[in-house]
């Protein structure tokens, strides 16, 4: 089913990227921060140890909401400019691999690299949380891991697609960082700003709808919804979550944020690469 060419590209990306220093550094950074939060997170000043699971969970969530998109966006931005700069692109294009295979191989390879980084960065912390709080937290942890992977993959595809539009790696990187600032920080800030400026005139329905457009907000919601008691702790507590915002809807949105840039990138690849 999967062609040898695709397997070859996946294998190459995995071999190459896992030996890349900044990828290793990303995993270590994730690991240190998640572990620190799992250990100290939510504890009142001076008291080391665990408090409520919910407090730890929210801290973890806040952390990875920043880190995962950042790592993924930076990782993906090099995907095609790298081949261009190294001069290997003409060899790839003169090979037997079709543009579809090239795209599939690249996406699968990069997604695997990201998944490996995330899993390696999460595992010790999640294990620690599991041991401390018991097996009842397992579903929440699984949701956390899976949704992180989906969010990461969608951000990855976003910057991989951007890397097809722009030739220079530094410019793709700049665009990726801009995307990160917009998606992770500015979007929510402006929504809050909108609420304040309009003194709550923006209907709650509209506000929720706007939140649903942003994959990072969806990621946050899906996690908070799965951890029942947490709804009360929502940063956007003013928002009433309407019944249509159910976990299946949220998961579907996350998946859509993978499928749409993925399909777009595939289309672009054929047009752009040979041009």
């Amino acid at each position, binding site marked *: 089913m999967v062609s040898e060419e695709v397997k070859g*590209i996946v294998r*190459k990306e995995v071999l*190459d990227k896992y030996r890349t220093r900044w990828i290793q550094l990303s995993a270590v950074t994730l690991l240190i921060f998640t572990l620190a939060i799992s250990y100290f997170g939510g504890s009142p000043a001076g008291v080391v140890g665990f408090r409520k699971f919910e407090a730890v969970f929210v801290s973890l969530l806040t952390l990875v909401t920043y880190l995962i998109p950042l790592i993924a966006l930076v990782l993906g931005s090099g995907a095609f400019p790298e081949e261009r700069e*190294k*001069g*290997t692109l003409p*060899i790839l294009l003169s*090979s*037997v691999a079709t543009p579809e295979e090239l795209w599939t191989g690249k996406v699968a390879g990069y997604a695997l690299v990201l998944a490996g980084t995330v899993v390696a960065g999460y595992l010790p912390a999640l294990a620690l949380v599991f041991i401390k709080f018991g097996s009842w937290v397992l579903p929440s942890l699984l949701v956390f891991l899976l949704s992180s992977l989906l969010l990461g993959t969608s951000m990855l595809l976003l910057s991989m697609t951007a890397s097809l539009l722009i030739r220079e790696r530094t410019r793709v990187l700049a665009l990726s960082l801009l995307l990160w600032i917009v998606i992770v920080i500015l979007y929510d800030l402006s929504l809050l700003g909108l609420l304040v400026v309009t003194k709550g005139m923006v209907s709650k329905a509209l506000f929720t709808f706007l939140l649903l457009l942003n994959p990072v907000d969806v990621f946050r919601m899906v996690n908070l919804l799965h951890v029942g008691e947490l709804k009360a702790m929502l940063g956007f507590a003013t928002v009433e979550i309407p019944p249509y915002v159910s976990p299946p809807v949220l998961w579907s949105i996350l998946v859509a944020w993978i499928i749409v840039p993925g399909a777009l990138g595939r289309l672009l690849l054929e047009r752009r690469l*040979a041009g």
Partner: protein
Amino acid sequence: MLELVNVSKLYGSVEALKGVSLKVRRGEFVGILGPNGAGKSTLLRVMVGVEKPSSGKVLVDSKEPSREEWASFRKKVGFMPERVSFYDNLTGLETLLFFAKLKGFGIKEVERVLSFGLLTEEDLRRKVGEYSKGMKQRINVMQALLGPPEFLVMDEPTSGLDPEGVVRFFEIVEELKNNGTTVVMSTHVVGEVEERADRIVILKEGRVAAEGSPEEVYLSMPVRFVVKAKRSDLIEVLKKNGAASVTKKGDFLIAEVPPKRKMEFLKALLEHEDAVEDLIMRGPSLEEVVSDGK
């Protein structure tokens, strides 16, 4: 097997190729020469279908290939682009295995290419990021030889190779050629293709300035006659009989004679034998042809 018909290639406002027409026949060795920026690399990329021409056609076996036909043509192509630095974190061996897979070959084919001895086993286990320029160039040569290709297209393959590497490289190419491989390569070292190539193409500013066997290229170029004159009126005679220009340098007259008027010029010299003390005839070297001019 391959033909370019009036191919132009634009990069923004830069016209890298301006209406290039060219045929590459099966089993031929074609050398591409030309100054920096002449369009050699662009030409080679268009030939293997890595870049589409802005206008004009690329014909494979006399017809424009469909997508599928390009794909099956590529199976037979070994392409060596210029200045490839490869993936820093892969070893030489992993790199070759990757390109083999991408071209649909297995470990057997990699082993065959390794047997050419372009890199030692020890080097092949090192990461390419640690390689010297010449070692990277050797990996580049090796990946193009996977197949072995029926159509081998190489962009300055010898640049960065040490003398021994150059010798080994041409031994390998010679062997491939004897087995029927069509070879197209660009180079700045005229001597590399002067004796070996069946045909030479000289590109200048995106146009074919000269084309043919090395002998044909020489024949198509103006010849310079240096004549030691006994009489001062000889200069007028030469100007009237074939010389495009005549300049005086001491006792010597230097005449540039266009290719089609060589005989006419010689005849005039014979008729005025009494005015000629001695004579030097100098064809341009290929280097001169490549570097200066018409």
